[in-house]
């Protein structure tokens, strides 16, 4: 990538005791991106973030920030700043002193420090609390202090370690919007670590999904959701119906396979010439009808409703079909009366368009 601000080249981290936390990871992050590292806990995403910040050193590989190899640069000399998961706001300093800290220790003149601290506090809307001590503040406010303290340094890259995990649900939604707004305003590259897919999908411009120390896929949120490259991704991001199938024949634009519970189906995808595959389809792409759908193009199967869970805006319906195939269907409750329109035990048809199906080989 030509305008990469952060480049990782074969970065590996092995902890004493032989645990490989990050395994041969290489990718580029462009200027001004809102980049998310997403993965289950223990996948190495935080270790990767800490290596970018310099708090951890890679066992092998290269980390390049702004065109410079960071191998010999300690964390206090790197153009990165971090918002820690525990916020790590200095308890013995006021909010203003916390924000000023990074400027004072690097010898920024007092009047400039004052001006920049005021700007940063303004940005996170904490001007009125400048003289407070952190123990008199809520979690959300302390997080803003941590944000202001990092942004006041004008880093090339801002690193955020699970920034929303300690906030309650409502505050989290607010903060999510605010982070996106902030990122657009300051024009700094954000790298965020999260285990929460909603967080990653809604904020990031690009997401790297990690598992067991390796990057599984890097894509935009919609690509990740609609075109996952593996079962792991399809299953990890959102909900999905994964159906095992065996390829009968395939060409450049068509796969014919025998799928569990569905029989022989034709999918408008390229696929392997033979072997076992998984076909994936998202619950909201499925439609429920009482009568057999007309038109030959749809993939359809008959089943019995096993469970209906009501969520207000949607209902999640589980239908048991042939061969013990269970399909999850999300129904929009777009009318006030009737909810999902089906009841437990009811016999229904499920159908969807073949182009909404994915073929996964891995």
């Amino acid at each position, binding site marked *: 990538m030509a305008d990469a601000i952060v480049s990782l080249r074969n970065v590996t981290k092995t902890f004493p005791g032989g645990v490989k936390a990050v395994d041969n990871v290489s990718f580029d992050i462009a200027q001004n991106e809102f980049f998310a590292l997403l993965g289950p806990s223990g996948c190495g995403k935080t270790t990767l973030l800490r290596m970018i910040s310099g*708090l951890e050193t890679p066992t092998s590989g290269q980390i390049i920030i702004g065109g410079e190899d960071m191998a010999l640069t300690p*964390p206090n000399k790197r153009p990165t700043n971090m918002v*820690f998961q525990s916020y*790590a706001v*200095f*308890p013995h300093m006021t909010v203003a002193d916390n924000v000023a*800290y990074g400027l004072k220790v*690097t010898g920024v003149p007092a009047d400039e420090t004052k001006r920049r601290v005021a700007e940063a506090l303004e940005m996170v809307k904490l001007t009125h609390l400048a003289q407070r001590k952190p123990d008199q503040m809520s979690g959300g406010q302390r997080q803003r202090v*941590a944000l202001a303290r*990092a942004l006041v340094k004008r880093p090339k890259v801002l690193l955020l370690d699970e920034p929303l995990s300690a906030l309650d649900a409502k505050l989290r939604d607010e903060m999510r919007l605010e982070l996106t707004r902030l990122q657009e305003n300051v024009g700094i590259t954000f790298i965020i670590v999260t285990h929460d897919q909603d967080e990653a999908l809604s904020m990031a411009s690009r997401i790297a999904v990690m598992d067991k120390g390796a990057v599984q896929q890097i894509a935009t949120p919609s690509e990740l959701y609609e075109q996952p490259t593996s079962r792991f991704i399809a299953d990890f991001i959102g909900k999905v119906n994964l159906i095992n199938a065996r390829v009968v024949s395939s060409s450049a634009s068509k796969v014919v396979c025998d799928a569990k519970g569905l029989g022989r189906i034709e999918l408008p995808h390229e696929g392997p010439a033979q072997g076992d595959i998984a076909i994936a389809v998202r619950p909201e792409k499925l439609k429920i009808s009482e009568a057999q759908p007309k038109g030959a193009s749809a993939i359809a199967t008959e089943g019995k409703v096993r469970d209906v869970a009501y969520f207000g805006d949607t209902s999640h319906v589980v239908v048991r079909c042939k061969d013990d195939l269970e399909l999850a269907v999300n129904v929009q409750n777009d009318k006030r009366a009737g909810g999902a329109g089906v009841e437990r035990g009811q016999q229904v048809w499920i159908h969807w368009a073949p182009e909404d199906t994915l073929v996964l080989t891995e």
Partner: protein
Amino acid sequence: MAQTLKPGSGPLDYGNRTWLKILFAAIFFALYAPIFTLIAFSFNTDKRGVVWRGFTFDNYVKAWNNADLQEAMLNSLTIAFISTIIATILGSMVALVLWRFRFPFKAGYEGVMSLPIVIPEICMGVSLLLFFTNAGMMAWSVSFVWPFNLINIIIAHVAFCFPFVAIVVRSRLVGFNRQLEEASKDLGASEWQTFWNVIVPFMMPGLIAGALLAFTLSLDDFVITYFTSGPETVTFPVKVYSLVRRGVSPEINAASTALIVITVVATVLAMKLQAPDKSGKG
């Protein structure tokens, strides 16, 4: 209907049982009656100090004007002051090393470090006396001008005070959020700046508590001081001991009361500062 419990017979109502109340009273009496007698008699007008004859502050004035007691008190305070500073610096450095680093024989080192706490004072006194005598310091230090002639006692006091400081400071450090240190470095601070701006302020309550503890320990130490002081130097507890041999005078009561007040104030402050708090969790 369920049987109602009599007041004081509940499983956690120990405090309401008569025999326990009596036991508590007896224990507190045995512990504090002598001290209160001492304090009360410091206000006595009787010269022999055996019978109560009337209230006066004269004993305090006399004690204050007693040149011998003055000299002893000055020595004690000087020793306590200097050894507290040294013990606090040493002790907190030990605490930092034990908190921060892993090294071979760490557990062994920790054990040896806290030996002065458990070794009987008399043994420590004898061993220090032997050490100073063999090193020639007993004879040597006498020739120094004040306060350098107190060096033996100061060294001895540092030796038994610093483990207390180390333990107090270390228990404070256990609650430190390491991310504070990382945040400081991430914001551009060097190791040294991080130490002074983040770690030391966090340690401060422990440092002060440890220092106050060391101060009180040093101020009222008798056994070790008795062994390590030369013939010329007298500290307050040692002086009191030598006076008592000639009979207890209300003057000594007054001086001792002053010492008790200093010690109690310092200890209460130390305990206050040591109390766990929420700060430092970031």
